[in-house]
């Protein structure tokens, strides 16, 4: 590949180095200089994990060709401080607990630094606006804003540096205590190594050919041209799997690489390892696949008709049906003063962790296959991998790298199998980093759902009976569908004492992107329906939404939906606290005017309004409402 010579100053050090002509500044910093505090979250200028200063101006280094930076003064997060000598802003990020997964944090620290350099007295609205180019998925931003305001006040000598060390000693519980996060300094200084930041000698780079068909038979895979590409060291398909080729969190039905047919757009078919990412991409582009398209299912209702089977050997598209029966709903509905019926649907949701999937694999000196990845489930992965690779369990090792956000999305073992095959085949370390686009098409999403709901209540608001039927789109593979259906069934009717319950949750296979684990794991979809039903009931019965919930809330001694006796119940405590903190405007839902009185109460944060830095009064307070 053509080269380019760069002369520039990085963090005060003069550097002269030859790099690839096409490298972005981000690639140059990470690949050539190992300055991996600058992260790549999206590669398209959306997320801000790659923010660096060029000649004092903060930019996103994924949008800067390295050639543009020739002769410039670059400052990266490594230049701001180190874990022993942190800047005020870095200390403040530690103090407020602003770093959670930590992947966005180097970029956030850079954006905060830029904001306070440009305007040391920036008010909250100006801070929000200037940091608008950086995304965090964990914190909800409050702790980040708290940190920037804290640092600002220390820089302006309005607060003493002591605020950086005001931690609490937990008494009986860590919950609610502001304790020191021991990993915070490594995160706020960009020193923590995520999987994509790791480098090993002789390491190869993996790229993956993915299906562009939702449902198709694979007739032929032509690797002739790909094998001839310079730097290609190994190519694997499903034929290279030595053991039992399937994995999955609950049902093990997914092959490492598509076998005979593809079941969704984005499914991996061939993996290539080469000396550089570019060579591996060239090889992928040179592979020809012959498909025979099959009729596909995109709708879970269609899947239930069983006209097309996604997995033929199962003879059904039903992944799991979980029924729960408690009491007698039919009889109870007869006594109800009010019966409400409705349908609810939810969409697939991407986890959008800031760290795209990445991993490193190698076979060590003792022949132990080792996988380093941000997996949320390494023990299970290890057992599955032993079967897949036909290895005794002591020859498989999983190391969990720091997880740059998971939210359930990193429970599936969707790329570790390919890493294992190539490390075994080439006997060289292999690294794989997904692009954001690849991550979005190929990894599991939250289950899209449709819920039919029937609720019977007395006129006082007491729930007499509930019938729920939920159908979830599990997508092409089992992943976590079974567990999600269980949780949806067990928790879906909510923390309410319901004596008569008929609950059915079904998950089915379709040719959509697989659905998997996601925060709250199935409970969200059905509980969304339950809570909506309670709001509708409150409106019909002219009751306060809190009140109708209190009447029905679980108390100690109640039986859960699966008839477990409760030793304790906290729902009423939670409701009371919520009502207080939200400055709740009491009354039935329809009694409120066009603007709710509690929406803009003192404890609620204002939405960010653009233009804070254009306002002449400059106090950042909202002028119009």
């Amino acid at each position: 590949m053509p080269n380019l010579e760069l002369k520039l100053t990085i963090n005060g050090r003069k550097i002269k180095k030859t790099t690839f002509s096409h490298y972005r500044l981000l690639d140059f910093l990470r690949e050539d200089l190992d300055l991996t505090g600058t992260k790549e979250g999206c590669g398209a200028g959306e997320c801000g994990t790659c923010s660096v200063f060029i000649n004092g101006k903060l930019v996103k280094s994924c949008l800067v060709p390295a050639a543009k930076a020739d002769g410039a003064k670059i400052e990266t997060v490594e230049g701001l401080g180190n874990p022993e000598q942190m800047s005020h802003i870095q200390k403040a990020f530690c103090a407020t607990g602003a770093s959670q997964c930590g992947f966005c944090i180097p970029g956030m620290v850079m954006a905060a630094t830029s904001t306070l350099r440009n305007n040391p007295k920036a008010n909250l609205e100006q801070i929000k606006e200037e940091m608008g180019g950086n995304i965090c998925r964990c914190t909800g931003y409050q702790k980040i804003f708290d940190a920037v305001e804290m640092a600002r006040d220390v820089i302006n000598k309005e607060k003493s540096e002591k605020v950086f060390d005001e931690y609490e000693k937990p008494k009986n519980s860590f919950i609610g205590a502001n304790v020191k996060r021991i990993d915070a300094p490594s995160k706020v200084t960009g020193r923590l190594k995520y999987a994509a930041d790791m480098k090993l000698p002789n390491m190869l780079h993996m790229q993956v050919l993915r299906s562009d068909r939702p449902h198709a038979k694979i007739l032929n895979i032509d690797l002739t041209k790909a094998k001839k590409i310079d730097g290609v060291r190994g190519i694997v398909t499903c034929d290279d799997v030595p053991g039992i080729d399937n994995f999955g969190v609950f049902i093990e039905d997914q092959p490492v690489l598509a076998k005979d047919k593809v079941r969704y757009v984005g499914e991996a078919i061939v993996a290539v390892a080469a000396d550089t990412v570019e060579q591996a991409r060239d090889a992928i582009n040179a592979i020809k696949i012959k498909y025979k398209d099959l009729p596909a299912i995109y709708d879970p209702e269609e899947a239930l008709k069983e006209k097309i089977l996604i997995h033929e050997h199962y003879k059904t598209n039903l992944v799991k049906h979980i029924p729960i029966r408690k009491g007698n709903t039919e009889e109870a509905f007869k006594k109800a003063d009010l019966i409400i019926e409705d349908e609810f649907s939810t969409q697939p949701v991407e986890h959008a962790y800031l760290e795209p999937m990445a991993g490193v694999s190698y076979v060590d000196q003792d022949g132990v296959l080792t996988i380093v990845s941000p997996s949320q489930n390494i023990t299970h992965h290890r057992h599955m991998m032993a079967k897949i690779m036909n290895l005794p369990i002591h020859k498989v090792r999983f190391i969990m790298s720091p997880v740059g956000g998971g939210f359930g999305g990193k429970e599936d073992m969707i790329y570790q199998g390919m890493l294992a095959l190539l490390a075994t085949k080439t006997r060289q370390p292999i690294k794989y980093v997904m692009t954001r686009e690849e991550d979005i098409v190929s990894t599991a999403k939250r289950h899209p759902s449709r819920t039919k709901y029937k609720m019977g209540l007395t006129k006082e608001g007491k729930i007499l009976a509930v019938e729920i039927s939920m159908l979830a789109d599990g997508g092409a593979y089992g992943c976590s569908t079974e567990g999600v259906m269980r949780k949806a069934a067990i928790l879906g009717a909510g923390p309410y004492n319901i004596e008569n319950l008929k609950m059915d949750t079904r998950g089915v296979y379709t040719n959509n992107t697989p659905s998997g684990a996601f925060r709250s794991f199935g409970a969200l979809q059905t509980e969304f329906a339950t809570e909506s039903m309670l709001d509708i009931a409150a409106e019909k019965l002219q009751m306060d939404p809190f009140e109708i919930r209190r009447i029905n809330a679980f108390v100690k001694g109640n039986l859960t939906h699966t008839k477990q006796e409760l030793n304790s119940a906290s729902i009423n405590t939670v409701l009371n606290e919520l009502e207080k903190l939200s400055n709740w405007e009491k009354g039935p839902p329809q009694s409120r005017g066009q603007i709710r009185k509690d929406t803009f109460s003192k404890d609620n944060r204002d939405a960010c309004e653009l233009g804070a830095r254009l306002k002449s009064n400059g106090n950042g307070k909202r002028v119009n409402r």
Partner: protein
Amino acid sequence: MLRYDNYFIPKTLKEYFELTSKVKDCRIVAGCTDILPWAREGRGGDVFLKNVVDVSRIKELNTFKFGSKKILMGAATNYQKLFLDKKIRKSLKVLPQVSVWFADDQIRELATIGGNIVNASPAGDGMPALLTLNTKVTVARFKNKKIVKEKMPLEKFVKGRNKVALKNNDLLVDFELENTDGYGACFEKVGHRRSLVISTVCVASLVKVNKNTFQDVRVAVGGVCEVPTRLLKTEKFLKGKSIDENNIYAASMLDLNVIKSRSRREYRTEVLQNFIIRSILKSLGKNNIDEEIQKFDNKVKQNLETVHA
């Protein structure tokens, strides 16, 4: 992934034309904030280019000449300058208003106003604002080894969706803008995400007041038609009229047929009318915009019912 063999950064127009007349297969870039996100899966995919020519450091594209009537601004001026520059904030008030809605601070440091105009996206935010400034553009061409410059109105330069009056290696050099000190300005925009958002509808406006009448009104709209355009009927109606609710409302109805979008027309119509009203009120420097605009709410809703009946 974007790959290329050579990346050239000429420093003058002369250097640029000498280079591009010698070297074949040149791709011209400035801020690179469009090409890099484009060369990815699902859009351009793996893109291979021979030569990339970065024009963002050409001297002539970085001029800034300030005059009491006209202001000359280089095409490589970045959006962050439009946002922060004190002279621009005073004399070209509409530009900071656009900039605050344009991507984010970090992208604005790279993205150029010239690149935005040359892309000629129907949803480009720069063009409506420049239209209100009665902008003329300078194009440089290389003829018989000589640099020839041509000046033309912006309306003539942008010919259609992604089409501008540039051939071969012609280059957009600068913009001649009208100094609009004394005008009130506003830019309104809506899309899917606040930062980095692509306009579904955007409106730029400039208003000059003489006592209680509109001395001059300029309104331009983007996102709803192939090329952003001035709302001439609205402007003409208001000029010389007294500043009151009825006149603003009457004017807001006159140009709603500019919407040519295939999708969400009803939504866009409602937004556009609200934006016209809102941007004029804001350009007038009204406080309590939310209260002011509520006075128009019912009228706008009734009008929509008749439009879509």
